[in-house]
């Protein structure tokens, strides 16, 4: 079989999973077919061989398992903090496992899709004309969650979205689509987490559109710890109005193949903090593409992504900052720092700034380096064994990313996760 024909078969298989029910979906499907699967010539996927990985993992002649069993809670549930939970299995909402907050609209997407407010917003923020996987998601999602937080409402307890996969009896595709509207002056913390049981291939595609109305405060935390045969595409599109505050965290502790798009449109004098951490080993691959789009004046954005790469792992960071013509007095900062622990690990980092306004403060910096040998020797010269000293230095490097996380429970949870990971594995 030629390369092109496998490619097409995968494309056909994925396209066939779409059953457009409205013009948005029809349009998105056409875009998906027009865009095709990204190859190495696609600038946005230059170092991200997602099509090749799909060809290797997905068998077009076999069906996808849409049914399955919810894995044991112990394996995926975050127990250390009280939280609401929204559970999906193989891309479908599981009512029985979910615990939804009262006082806000929180509705599975397969029913919410008929609401006016949903059709007013869905597909308006996440651009499906430039990325095939977002196009595919828009055309073919099976479920998701719609969360509508009323004005002046504070949801203190975090809402955790669990995307579970049962891959014990065949390959799985999990296509979920969320819409979150944080009403004026509301506050909420959202967490996303994945877990796969079984060793068959999983392709997951999660796209969320998150609208921050005026004066909202949103913490958004992505926790990627899924250690399976899982190819993950994630696109979080934030849209911020004036005086809103976003704290976005993308924490990747394991994963075979991950592409994250984190995009923020600052459509008012607002504030965004984008943090990312990827701790990769063996053959793990993680790509973070971020876009910070300053559309209006007087907004502030700060971005810090850090990576530790061991084994033959591969990390990609691409950070775009746009400052549009009208966005005077913009402050935009970006930094990507990588530590390579092995000769065979690779980090690709690329900042891209496009600035059309003249009165702005922007800075960016990226580094790829090794663990500081002098620091390591210093700690060892105090009697600390090599492994512990190394873990201490890596922890110090990594912990900066979550240092300012405003939610203590989640911060402690991540802190423990990072500590355990660094003390056990590198």
């Amino acid at each position, binding site marked *: 079989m030629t390369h092109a024909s496998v490619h097409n078969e995968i494309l056909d298989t994925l396209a066939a999973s779409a059953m457009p029910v409205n013009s948005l979906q029809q349009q998105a499907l056409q875009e998906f077919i027009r865009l095709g699967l990204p190859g190495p010539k696609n600038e946005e996927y230059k170092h991200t061989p997602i099509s090749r990985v799909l060809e290797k993992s997905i068998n077009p002649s076999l069906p996808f398992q849409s049914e399955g069993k919810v894995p044991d809670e112990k394996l995926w549930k975050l127990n250390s903090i009280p939280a609401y939970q929204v559970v999906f299995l193989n891309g479908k909402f599981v009512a029985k496992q979910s615990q939804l907050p009262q006082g806000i609209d929180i509705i599975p997407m397969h029913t919410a899709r008929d609401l006016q407010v949903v059709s007013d917003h869905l597909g308006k923020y996440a651009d499906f004309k430039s990325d095939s996987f977002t196009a595919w998601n828009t055309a073919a999602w099976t479920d998701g969650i719609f969360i509508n937080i009323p004005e002046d409402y504070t949801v203190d307890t975090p809402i955790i979205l669990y995307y579970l996969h049962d891959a014990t009896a065949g390959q799985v595709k999990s296509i979920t689509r969320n819409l979150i509207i944080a009403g004026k002056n509301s506050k909420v913390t959202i967490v996303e987490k994945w877990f796969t049981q079984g060793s068959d291939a999983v392709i997951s595609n999660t796209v969320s559109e998150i609208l921050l109305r005026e004066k909202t405060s949103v913490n958004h935390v992505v926790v990627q710890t899924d250690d399976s045969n899982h190819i993950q595409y994630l696109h979080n599109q934030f849209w911020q109005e004036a005086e809103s505050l976003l704290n976005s965290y993308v924490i990747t502790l394991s994963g075979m193949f991950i592409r994250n798009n984190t995009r923020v449109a600052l459509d008012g004098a607002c504030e965004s903090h984008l943090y990312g951490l990827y701790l990769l080993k063996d053959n793990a691959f993680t790509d973070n593409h971020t876009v910070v789009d300053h559309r209006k004046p007087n907004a502030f954005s700060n971005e810090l992504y850090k990576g530790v790469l061991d084994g033959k792992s591969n990390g990609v960071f691409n950070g775009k900052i746009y400052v549009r013509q009208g966005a005077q007095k913009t402050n935009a900062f970006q930094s990507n720092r990588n530590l390579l622990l092995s000769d065979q690990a690779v980090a690709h980092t690329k900042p891209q700034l496009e600035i059309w306004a003249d009165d702005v403060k922007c800075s960016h910096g990226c580094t790829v380096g090794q663990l*500081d040998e*002098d*620091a390591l*020797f*210093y*700690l*060892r*010269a*105090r*009697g*600390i*064994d*090599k492994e*512990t*000293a190394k873990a*201490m*230095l890596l*922890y*110090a*490097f990594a*912990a*900066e990313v979550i240092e300012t996380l405003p939610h203590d429970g989640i911060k402690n949870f991540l802190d423990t996760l990072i500590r355990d990971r660094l003390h056990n594995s590198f």
Partner: protein
Amino acid sequence: MLTIRNLYARVGDKEILKGIDLEVKAGEVHAIMGPNGSGKSTLAAVLAGREDFEVTDGSVEYLGKNLLEMEPDERAREGIFLAFQYPVEIPGVSTINFMKTAVNQVRIHRGQEPLDAVSFLQLMKEKMKLVDIDQALLSRSLNEGFSGGEKKRNEIFQMAMLEPRLAILDETDSGLDIDALKIVANGVNKLRSKDNAIIVVTHYQRLLNYIVPDFVHVLYKGRIVKSGGKELALELESKGYDWIKSEAEVA
């Protein structure tokens, strides 16, 4: 306690130590002096286990063991302490948080119970007083933005916490004001006992007024070219190194 015989060490193609012989007994204080670039810090680093330096000949015996076969952390747990000439900055790691790990690893190695948080704090408070150092400083990222004197005091604080058998102080006096010098010397003198030994690398006689050495050695071009009692330091102070250099060249 420490026996160095005919020690040669190099970095890359560059030979730095060219046959060092030195015997340090328990209870003694040795001062090592010598012009810049003569190899004093290299000797200290080799003793602490720095891997950048390759030992090409000779031997080092410490408490009856082959020191050169031990990992740097093992040497520290066995009681060797190096106060660095240039202490490194480690962002995100505070003195308090790594000293707790260090002290307990050393204690476990010595067959002592690890300290709990309360006893650790108690020990820390006591040693802080000894070197007159502030807790706020110890909670900050190690050496980041510390003044020269603060870095040196922090080294002595760590020494006091770890209670080494053999302390090697590499120019701990440089950059210290008179008061700090006395404090540091006092910290070092507290460690002096019949079981411990101290090697002080310094350029100045001044420190040796406070930490009185039993022996003074002059290191020049990778070799100890002269040894004597504490008077030798005074002689160097007044005459400089030229006479030693010419003596060494002749020999």
